[in-house]
């Protein structure tokens, strides 16, 4: 058996084969969402919780009809919340919506322009939610001290941003992500910022346990093809991490033996 097959991602005691988590926002329609998720191989899929439009067509298809909670682990998020109170209420509603399922993605944002996490409110919300029995996967900045604080509160996964949500700028401070991973006992995932396959592979080669993304796939010209590319990049990056890269050397080191080379002079 290859090492890869025997290498599950474990979050809050649950085991997953895929290390790619994907969001369901920004797709053209539910069919494109479904096809992209299938191509990505993701098992954990994030959703947002919003007020139901009253008076809408009751026959309109529902996201959870397309992405069945029987087939996927649904990860409700608190996207759009700018304070701890709203994030906590959203999680409570999500738990009710998902029949008691208590795994949530906590994100409390600072402002519209950057969508950068407000870590003060994030910490407040995490504390309340963990005490209430939620399994909190938390979106945060790449600050190692904040990450440690969130871990000590009992979050089940620490998810620093690679760069701003939806920016596609990649992983701007890999050094900080490395520092976070060094001490963290729960899985560290890069959440946000990945723009293309090489950046996903890079995160995995660094030793991240998984990557969560949305825009990189939904915003690609061909989302299904990018979803497939991301699946391979995550697998390749993970295998490269497990394999252990060769050391970097200052000068060349020949791959072919020198002995027996024909010599004219």
């Amino acid at each position, binding site marked *: 058996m290859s090492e890869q097959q025997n290498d599950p991602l474990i979050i809050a005691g649950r085991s997953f084969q895929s290390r790619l988590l994907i969001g369901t926002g920004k797709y053209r329609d539910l069919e494109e969402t479904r096809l992209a998720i299938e191509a990505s191989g993701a098992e954990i899929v994030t959703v947002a*919780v919003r007020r139901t439009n009253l008076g809408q067509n009751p026959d309109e298809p529902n996201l959870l009809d397309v992405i069945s909670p029987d087939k996927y682990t649904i990860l409700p998020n608190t996207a759009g919340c700018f304070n701890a109170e709203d994030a906590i209420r959203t999680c409570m509603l999500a738990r009710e919506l998902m029949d008691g399922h208590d795994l949530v993605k906590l994100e409390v944002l600072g402002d519209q322009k950057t969508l950068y996490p407000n870590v003060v409110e994030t910490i407040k919300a995490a504390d309340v939610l963990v005490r209430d029995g939620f399994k909190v996967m938390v979106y945060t900045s790449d600050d190692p001290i904040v990450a440690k604080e969130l871990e000590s509160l009992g979050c089940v996964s620490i998810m620093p941003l690679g760069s701003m949500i939806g920016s596609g700028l990649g992983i701007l401070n890999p050094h900080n992500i490395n520092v976070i991973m060094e001490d963290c006992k729960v899985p560290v995932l890069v959440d946000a910022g990945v723009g293309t396959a090489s950046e996903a592979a890079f995160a995995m080669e660094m030793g991240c346990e998984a990557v969560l993304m949305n825009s990189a796939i939904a915003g690609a010209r061909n989302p299904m093809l990018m979803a497939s590319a991301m699946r391979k990049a995550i697998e390749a990056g993970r295998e490269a991490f497990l394999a252990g890269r060769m050391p970097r050397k200052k000068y060349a080191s020949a791959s072919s033996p020198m002995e027996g080379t024909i010599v004219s002079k």
Partner: protein
Amino acid sequence: MLIQVNGDNLEIQEGASVADLIAQLELGERRVAVELNLEIVPRSRHADTALSQGDRVEVVHAIGGG
């Protein structure tokens, strides 16, 4: 009586329950979660939770998001 649902005023029959509200909104078949005056109303309690004048109700569902 008048209540507020998702921020909008809504006229509903005196003594209506949360289940009656869901039916009136034609959301019976949909997967929704209900909050009444900041408290979750579990699905199993919709039928026996009565609404009162001025109640503030939130009805939410899952949509695409990252």
